């Protein structure tokens, strides 16, 4: 009869955020461990709760698979002497394989005959190998580990028991002073100590002791409970998957309950209600059929329905206290004016060397204004941009944001509106934090986009200037994310201002401010590479390959949306067979042009028709290239450049560039240099690898 194996690690409450990943690791590691050991099984199941991680291996083989291996020895010429006797080499080989010369057979390998023996590796008993599972337990990675008691082991939380069963037999090993056994524990309060007789009893025994070990089942129970609550309350509970994931990993035995709060709290901004319920208390907010919040919440208890009324009452009390705070803050905050809060910004540090938030805000105002100018934005909108920049941080000084920090921007929008600010200003206050994550949403309004970019530019230039550039995994001010945000916004809005210029105008502002700790040498040294890396990152995210990124960013960091377009043009081109001769011609020009700085071409010095032709065509191409760029037709602009290829080939066939005559040589190099400058304006084609596809 096939046997089964159970391992269970009993822990003090694991952080919910680590559980799913730990269970996944357990499965992967167990699978590859058994595969490496050549131990077969029918199925591996894994389980997890806040207090345990477990794995159940079904129908495990009694032994490792026995394998036969063919061992190859020396060539027959060496293995036998002229009389056909086995040589020392042959004897040595068989001994080394645990065989004798009687086991030798021969086979031809590529025309030469070699001697072989068949080697059998006998599988060991599974039972003798199972204690190795200890290594798997020790190798599970968690985001944060700790030590406890007298021990030196670092693990996510203290290990309190371990079950290791091979059918009814205990698999012996020890970790951090805990010895394996067949004893596990049920729910902290509802369950008992459980002696497991057989691995297959695990799920049921645990269930009888109020532990649902399968997290998918717990999730289903919660969803079922929510459905019943919806029917009972005649309302809708929108499911937030992140919250559901967390909640199912905070309980071993879920029981869903409905709580309520006073209707008057519904006057609070919905974000305050939702944050209080979701983030602070892990409740699901409840909505009506029309999508408005109702004065109810759905919670999940870790336990059964005994005295559920007490639990509900307690939870309601906690929520009420939070919402009362929220209400108090909401009312108090609106008693003051915007100016009151703006003044307070002057006494709160942004970064020690970069001054107060108030100082930061005035920089953001200046940068926003400069960007608006570069984008030729009219005076009326510019006024709104300036106002939005001025108010961008005022809500940080309100009681509400002080208590509910995740509502920064959101409260700013609400309060600005209630203080009678322009609608576009209010929206921009919220939007200027966007995007809040790598792929996060971008500001929808122009005002929001400009203030967002200005705020990020200030942080990046300032932080790098005081030596806070990100290193390795350290990026405490989120500079990388913010730079990505700038680039995404600039691309999305197709701003016709080169990325490098956005940073330049910020640096100019800093230079005018005379901040003691800002080091412009450092900015000069670090910033360019930092931006280049971020542009490369954004392009890479869009599937652009490294050599094309290099081609586009090596000479200048231009207009973001142009770089994105150029990248896609070149990515398509480089796979076309017809592009090869074009690239060769243009690259040859780029290489030769490096030998000169000369740009003045004198047609009088031309000696051949081919150079005269090239110059004429260049002048035509240049004119149409410029025009097409202005029309933002990059595809057309590149096609224009392609027209140079043919005359370039003819030019090289018929002319000696490095002519003896200096005047002639200089003139020809100058011509090539003019073409090179034009080509480089698009991209450094030299960086692109020709990819031939067959």
């Amino acid at each position: 009869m096939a046997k089964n194996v159970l391992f269970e690690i009993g822990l003090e409450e694991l952080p919910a955020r680590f559980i799913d990943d730990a269970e996944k690791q357990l499965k992967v590691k167990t699978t590859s461990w058994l595969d490496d050991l050549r131990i077969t099984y029918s199925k591996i199941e894994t389980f997890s709760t806040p207090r345990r991680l477990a794995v159940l291996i079904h129908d495990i083989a009694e032994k490792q698979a026995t394998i036969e291996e063919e061992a190859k020895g020396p060539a027959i010429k060496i293995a036998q002497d002229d009389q056909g006797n086995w040589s020392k080499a042959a004897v040595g080989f068989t001994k080394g394989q645990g065989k004798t010369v009687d086991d030798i057979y021969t086979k031809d390998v590529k025309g030469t005959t070699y001697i072989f023996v068949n080697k059998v590796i006998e599988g060991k008993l599974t039972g003798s190998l199972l204690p190795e599972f200890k290594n798997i337990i020790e190798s599970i990675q968690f985001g944060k580990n700790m030590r406890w008691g007298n021990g030196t082991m670092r693990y996510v939380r203290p290990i309190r028991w371990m079950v290791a069963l091979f059918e009814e037999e205990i698999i012996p090993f020890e970790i951090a002073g805990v010895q394996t056994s067949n004893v596990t524990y049920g729910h902290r309060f509802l369950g008992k100590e459980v002696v497991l007789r057989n691995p297959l009893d695990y799920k049921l025994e645990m269930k009888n002791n109020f532990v649902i070990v399968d997290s998918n089942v717990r999730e289903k129970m919660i969803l079922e409970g929510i459905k019943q609550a919806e029917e009972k309350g005649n309302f809708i509970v929108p499911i937030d998957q992140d919250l559901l994931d967390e909640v199912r990993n905070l309980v071993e035995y879920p029981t869903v309950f409905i709580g309520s709060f006073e209707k008057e709290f519904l006057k609070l901004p919905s974000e305050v209600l939702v944050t209080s319920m979701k983030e602070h208390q892990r409740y699901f907010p409840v909505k009506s059929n029309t999508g408005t919040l109702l004065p109810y919440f759905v919670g999940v208890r870790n336990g059964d329905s005994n005295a559920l009324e007490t639990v509900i009452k307690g939870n309601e009390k906690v929520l009420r206290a939070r919402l009362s705070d929220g209400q108090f803050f909401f009312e108090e905050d609106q008693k003051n004016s915007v100016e009151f809060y703006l003044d307070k910004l002057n006494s709160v540090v942004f970064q020690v060397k970069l001054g107060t938030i108030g100082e930061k805000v005035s920089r953001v105002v200046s940068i926003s204004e400069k960007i608006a100018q570069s984008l030729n934005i009219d005076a009326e909108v510019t006024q709104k941009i300036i106002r939005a920049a001025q108010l961008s941080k005022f809500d940080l000084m309100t009681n509400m944001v002080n208590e509910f920090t995740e509502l920064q921007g959101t409260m700013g929008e609400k309060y600005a509106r209630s203080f009678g600010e322009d609608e576009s200003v209010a929206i921009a206050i919220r939007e200027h934090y966007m995007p809040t994550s790598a792929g996060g949403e971008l500001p929808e309004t122009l005002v929001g986009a400009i203030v967002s970019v200005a705020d990020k530019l200030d942080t990046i230039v300032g932080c790098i200037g005081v030596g806070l550039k990100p290193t390795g995994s350290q990026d405490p001010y989120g500079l990388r994310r913010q730079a990505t945000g700038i680039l995404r916004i600039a691309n999305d809005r197709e701003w016709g201002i080169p990325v490098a210029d956005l940073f330049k105008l910020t640096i100019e502002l800093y230079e005018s401010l005379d901040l003691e700790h800002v080091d412009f040498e450092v900015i000069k040294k670090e910033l360019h590479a930092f931006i280049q890396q971020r542009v490369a990152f954004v392009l890479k995210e869009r599937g652009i390959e490294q050599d094309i990124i290099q081609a586009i960013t090596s000479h200048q960091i231009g207009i973001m949306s142009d770089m994105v377009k150029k990248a896609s043009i070149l990515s398509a081109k480089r796979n076309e067979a017809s592009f090869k001769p074009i690239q060769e011609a243009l690259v040859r020009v780029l290489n030769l042009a490096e030998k000169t700085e000369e740009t003045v071409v004198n047609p009088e010095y031309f000696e051949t028709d081919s150079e005269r032709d090239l110059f004429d065509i260049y002048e035509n191409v240049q004119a149409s290239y410029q025009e097409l760029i202005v029309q933002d037709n990059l595809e057309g602009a590149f096609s224009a450049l392609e027209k140079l290829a043919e005359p370039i080939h003819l030019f090289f066939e018929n002319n000696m560039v490095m002519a003896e005559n200096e005047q002639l040589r200089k003139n020809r190099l100058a011509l090539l240099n003019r073409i090179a400058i034009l080509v480089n304006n698009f991209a450094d084609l030299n960086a692109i690898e020709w990819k031939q596809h067959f």
Partner: protein
Amino acid sequence: MNIQNMILTLQKFWSEQNCILMQAYDVEKGAGTMSPMTLLRSLGPEPWRVAYVEPSRRPADGRYGENPNRLYQHHQFQVIIKPSPDNIQDLYLESLQALGINPLEHDIRFVEDNWENPTLGAAGLGWEVWLDGMEITQFTYFQQIGGLEASPVTVELTYGIERLASYIQDKENVFDLEWTDGFTYKDIFKQPEYEHSTYTFEESNVDMLFQLFSMYEEEAQKTMEKGLIFPAYDYVLKCSHTFNLLDARGVISVTERTGYIGRIRNLARNIAKAYVEERERLGFPMLKKEDK
């Protein structure tokens, strides 16, 4: 159960777990962790078990006695055990039962919460304990104290007395809590809350406080150099409280703030190191006691 009985119950419970019952430490501090009974004693290899109530002052949280939840001074019941026992969670849950909280009728959970106090160079991992959704205790395994690795590991339980009482007594407002028969929290603390808030936010002598900070700091430094660790630590606590008063008054400028915190941290770190060295010089006396 009134607050007095809660405290008596917790004291009795932890006394039965062989904890030394201490009284509150007589220097102002922001949290029970800052008592030398926790901060210094959790350093080094010597075993330690202690329980005490700590009135904790947080000047910036003062609300003139008008807010139902916030106080200039609240009370923590602090339990410190080194090394952390294997059954510490069970012991803690038993202590709740001693307070009349039947876990079968409630929802008690351990929700991840990692604690850090940069001023003391201290950090730990653990949970906030939820009782029907309310945070009633901080449960922390110290990993680092005064910049030194905590080994063996000390476990710290910090019960929020007012929180717990408001649940047990089912009161919405902290001032309605019953301290003992015939005396409410309001009777005892309303006036001091009002007066301390008024002092903190309106009347404190800022110049004097600045002077005091410098004097305390200097004295802490000098005293430590003489190898007098406990007196030096008292002055660190005084620095910390003086800083909190100045900070609540809003007179510490931005640039200065980080500087002040850094100064306190340096003192705390040096004292932590000196404490361990001194205990080592004394041959870790309590380690020997345990062996006997």
